[in-house]
């Protein structure tokens, strides 16, 4: 019985690379467009998505938006620019500080600091989404998603913010595997080496915030989700019970983020309940 998250290695990488490239190429062409636009943060996930898209569609068909806020780290911007330069893709830098601060100036900073920080983070993510979708129209391009499987399962993302996209090539790939993939894509070492961060405020760290490492969480989620083992089975295989419960709880609690909004059924045929077609139907 295989118990470990399978590695993306030199043997399977070529086929996975081809598969993900085909996915982008084919699904983009079905929308009758040629190009994608994506938010480039300077982190590893959007860098991987960007490399995949550039390979699939050609560098002239990928546009990166770099959308810093005043607290975004300068290193993130540098790393994003390295990706843009290495791939030779077009890019725009759009600072979102003004609109975010203007909104929160009117809202006032009442309420607890933690609450404000989360609201601000969500607002930034949705502001970026809003700009991406505006550019989607402007450039006649689809928005390429950059959320990985780990954060989608844990609900570590903003609904209708960074989780929003038209298509996502890396949403079924765990963070641990994203690092392996990045290694084979020749993504700059600096981007691979730095600790994962949403960079919504200075010094933010995914793993500190979550309270566990991606490596451990991915190992557990691989058993719970991919292998469909019950939590007690994951525990019997050597994982800490409290951590398994915590992760399973996070997955369940964030299910709403992975589904379309609920629709109250009143008719005989209801969208997505018993009106069932592929998105590729058209």
């Amino acid at each position, binding site marked *: 019985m295989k118990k470990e998250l*399978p*590695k*993306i*290695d030199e*043997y*399977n990488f*070529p*086929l*996975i690379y*081809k*598969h993900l490239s*085909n*996915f982008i190429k*084919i*699904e983009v062409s079905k929308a009758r467009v040629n190009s994608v636009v994506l938010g480039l943060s300077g982190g590893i996930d959007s860098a991987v998505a960007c490399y995949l898209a550039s390979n699939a569609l050609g560098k002239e068909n990928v546009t990166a938006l770099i959308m810093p806020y005043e607290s975004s780290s300068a290193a993130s911007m540098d790393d994003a620019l390295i990706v843009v330069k290495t791939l030779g893709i077009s890019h725009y830098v759009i600072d979102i500080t003004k609109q975010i601060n203007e909104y929160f100036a009117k809202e006032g900073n009442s309420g607890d600091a933690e609450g404000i920080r989360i609201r601000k983070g969500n607002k930034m993510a949705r502001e970026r989404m809003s700009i991406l979708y505006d550019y989607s129209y402007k450039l006649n391009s689809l928005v390429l998603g950059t959320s990985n499987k780990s954060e989608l399962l844990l609900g570590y993302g903003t609904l209708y913010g960074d989780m929003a996209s038209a*298509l996502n090539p890396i949403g079924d790939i765990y963070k641990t*595997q994203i690092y392996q993939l990045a290694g084979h894509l020749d993504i700059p070492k600096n981007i691979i080496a730095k600790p994962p961060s949403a960079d919504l405020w200075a010094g933010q760290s995914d793993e500190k915030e979550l309270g566990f490492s991606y490596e451990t969480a991915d190992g557990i989620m691989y058993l719970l989700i991919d292998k469909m083992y019950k939590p007690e089975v994951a525990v019997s295989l050597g994982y800490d019970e409290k951590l398994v419960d915590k992760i399973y709880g996070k997955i369940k609690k964030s299910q709403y983020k992975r589904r379309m909004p609920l629709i109250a059924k009143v008719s005989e045929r209801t969208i997505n309940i018993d*009106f*069932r*077609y*592929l*998105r*590729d*139907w058209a």
Partner: protein
Amino acid sequence: MKKNNSMKICLAQTNPKVGDLKKNIENHVEIISGAKVQGAELVVFPELSLTGYFLKDSVYDLGINIHTGESAVLKPIYKTSEDLNISVIAGFVEKDEDFNFYNSSFCISKGKLINVHRKVYLPTYGMFEELRYFKPGDGFGVFDMDGVKVSVLTCEDAWHLSSSYIAVNKGAHIIIVNSASPARGIAAGLNKFNSMNMWEELLSVIAFYYKSYVIYVNRVGFEDGIGFSGGSCIFNPLGEMEKKLDYLEEGVVSADINLDLLNNERFKTPLIRDENLNLTLKEIESIVNNETIK
């Protein structure tokens, strides 16, 4: 019987456009014509090659009663088959006179319909939901094509080893497995997805132990993020892969099946001759009658 006791078969690894019968038929005709130039006598297309796979409610719009005027839409395929003196196996949504729908594959040979296989085992688990829409077929037929006996198993059919057991014991020389198999399962140390590996092991086992040619024709392309793996291939009765198309890419390849080699293998290792059907029958009866462990 054929010259040299052989038959040239073309494996057509296509990327059907979901829901677009007309376009897919055009594509089939083009491929059949190209295969004829290469000398093929039979062209095999994937499961549901004329419609696409994850059809959901559009099954309702795509069903064809192949025995009525509705089959007029297939005229270009009948005509090409007749004009080029060639046989074609392709997948479609079949509708019967009682308005049941089937995941079916026809064989049109030299302009005439000579066989329809209705998929028996309809996967309805994980990402699959075939039983929601289709009625299961009721058997595994063997039919004659210019002296070669052929049986068609569609995808999941082949995962039930009883189906190939039935086919060879009914006399099949070649087992055609047409499929729409999604690529899935990252496997460390392997240059393919897990699902591809499972298929190749299974097909090799069927070919070797049932002493038959196995022709696997799988599709490629994506439907709503699910990618089909391709890797269509042919296994000889020694269980060896003779030809293979690339994973994930459209393509065609022709291969000869050789009945002399089949004859040779079946003589040296007469597993089919020695099969004790009465024993199997007795055992299955006892299983069905719930007389299991005494």
